[in-house]
């Protein structure tokens, strides 16, 4: 088991952190998705190809490396389709589609993955997906459809649909989380391509781990923000961080962060090196980190006092991202139920 970053992973983290600090500072995230930043992220840092296998032009890295990157994009509240594209690449682990993966690796294609099932007539797909992650920003949608090979085996295939193509109607939604878009996507006979059979297991677990890595970044940045504020804000003649009422809460938040990081490292390692442990590790990651992230973001906002309640302050951006992330893969109880199942309780 590997819970400590390697030298290379630390370098990757520094590179991404440094890049985002200048290319996507917090004041900028309210402007939403910046395709130029996204292009540079993929171009200069090659992040779009990070987990794409080398044979498709990617770096062939694992979830451990992706987690390092997502922690930074999470900490920066980076808008845009990076997480959705990573989700898509993870979904293609079992059904590697050369065209799509090559496009992703080259940074040409932003993709998004939706679990909503489409209907498919062999060449065109139809259906309504009510909340597609970064659906306006993505170029390609990947979603499951019945395989159509008759039988009630319930086999499914993964389809790819060009979102800018015919038969697609997209409507931007106003999300709670201001820093990442959602869109309603209505397909009415949109040309669709079969990527292969939909993997029966493992994809959901990988999404859980990837999301937990983003949440780890969100909570780390939120904690850093309120710790910094507690060192400069004065009330009743002394720094608020010197009051145990604040200090002890921050110490508890730190404990959550330490445990969350440990779980994320473990789950990413399991995804890469010990697939047998992955399902339990993935459910643990969402069950623990999702909750811890929201609690830390909530307390970081509350401890800011009145200023943290204003629109101008960034605290609510973290708070809302944390809440949106907590339920992104469904109501959090599903992860606890899955744990109960996996533990054979």
């Amino acid at each position, binding site marked *: 088991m590997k819970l400590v970053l390697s030298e290379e992973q630390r370098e990757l983290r520094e590179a991404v952190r440094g890049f985002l600090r200048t290319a996507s500072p917090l004041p900028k995230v309210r402007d939403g998705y910046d395709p130029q930043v996204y292009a540079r992220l993929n171009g200069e840092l090659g992040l779009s190809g990070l987990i794409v296998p080398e044979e498709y032009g990617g770096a062939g890295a694992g979830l451990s490396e992706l987690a390092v990157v997502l922690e930074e994009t999470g900490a920066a509240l980076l808008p845009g389709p990076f997480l959705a594209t990573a989700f898509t690449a993870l979904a293609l682990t079992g059904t590697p589609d050369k065209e799509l993966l090559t496009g992703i690796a080259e940074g040409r294609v932003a993709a998004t993955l939706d679990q909503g099932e489409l209907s498919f007539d062999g060449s065109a797909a139809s259906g309504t997906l009510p909340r597609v992650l970064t659906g306006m920003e993505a170029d390609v949608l990947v979603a499951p459809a019945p395989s159509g090979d008759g039988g009630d085996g319930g086999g499914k295939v993964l389809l790819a649909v060009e979102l800018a193509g015919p038969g697609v109607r997209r409507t931007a939604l106003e999300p709670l989380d201001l820093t990442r878009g*959602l869109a309603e996507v209505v397909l009415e006979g949109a040309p669709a391509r079969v990527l292969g059979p939909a993997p029966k297991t493992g994809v959901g677990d990988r999404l859980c781990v990837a999301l937990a890595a983003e949440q780890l970044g969100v909570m780390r940045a939120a904690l850093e923000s309120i710790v910094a504020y507690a060192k400069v804000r004065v009330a009743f*003649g002394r720094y608020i961080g010197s009051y145990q009422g*604040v200090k002890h809460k921050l110490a508890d938040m730190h404990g959550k962060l330490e445990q969350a990081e440990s779980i994320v490292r473990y789950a990413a390692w399991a995804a890469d090196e010990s697939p047998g442990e992955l399902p339990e590790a993935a459910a643990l990651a969402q069950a623990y980190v999702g909750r811890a992230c929201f609690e830390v973001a909530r307390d970081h906002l509350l401890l800011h*006092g*009145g*200023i943290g309640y204003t629109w101008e302050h960034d*605290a609510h951006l973290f708070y809302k991202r944390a809440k949106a992330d*907590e*339920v992104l893969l469904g109501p959090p109880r599903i992860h606890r139920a899955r744990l109960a199942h996996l533990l054979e309780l």
Partner: protein
Amino acid sequence: MNLADYRRAAGAWLRDNAPSDDHPEADGIARAKDFMAKLYDAGYSGITWPERWGGQGLTQAEERAFAEAARDYTLPTYVFMIGLGMTGPTLVDRGTDAQRERFVRPLLRGEEIWCQLFSEPGAGSDVASLQTRAERDGDHWIVNGQKVWTSVAHHADWGLLLARTDVDVPKHKGLTMFVVDMHHPGVTVRPLKDMSGRANFNEIFFDNVPVPDEHRVGEVNDGWSVAVTTLLHERLSISAGVGMGGQKDNPASVEALRRVVDTDDPLVRDELVELHIRTRALALFNQRLAQETRAGIFPGARGSAAKLLLAELTQFEADVATRLVGPEAMLAGHPLARAISTAPGMALGGGTNEIMRNIVGDRVLGLPPEPRVDKTVPFKDLKVGTQT
């Protein structure tokens, strides 16, 4: 008139006069003022206030009877709440007769709207560390500085302003209270959006705004004691309202949630049970405080415990509701998205949870105070606000 008759009469009046909607948009202020004038003329504004200054001179009993009759209505009195709940009572308690004569009746009749100008960006929980200056200039004072978290300031005619008049004494001892004309061109009101995107309060900038000395409330440098009066009234009006609001419009209530979540799932049911338990526990505590008040047992600082619990419940219910409902609540227009976005407000307005815990610890449990470094140092030597 006995109490039952009083209440019946109030009910009848409200039936005839209460407006049917409660959204004072556009022409809302004019309509709110019309209603307030009618309310005053009918004798239902300032029920317990002294007759001499325009009140009715009645007792808490009549006020409660009216409040009970009004519970079925949403009256358009929002913009008058600061005046009625805080600044008006402060003037009645601490103003000069001339000030009471000039301000109280128009306030009660809704002719003039008031705001309260205490908090500053650098002085939140620690109001007394404020930096807005009022400097004497003959028979006037010249005000410069910035206030924040000011509700209804964009509609206000008058503001009750706490300003620093001496920086050479400890912070509590160099403050003075004034009534300031919000229409003076040196006053700039800028709406301040809260995290839910609504502009529910304002920032106010004062640029050489003159205030006549006869608009000073209380003695020079005795403003903190006046402010304590105001804050006491604020706390009373908050704790009076705590938990009394109907749950019928609350999308995070057990009643609302049970209609939209899967109650076949035992874990979902148990979350609703937990929410029910906490809601009932606080509601019963509030009812007990109300019964005690009626029996003459004044709740005092225990109201801060109720306020703290309400803040925690408000946060908890929005949190658990969004967890239960899941992704579909994550759109800005969803009632639960609004609930989770406004939930922190209850913990921040009227004192943070930390301040409430201090109050309960100090005044209810009688615990020893925190050592204070800020009570003796001259203000000009004191660390205040945000220090980078």
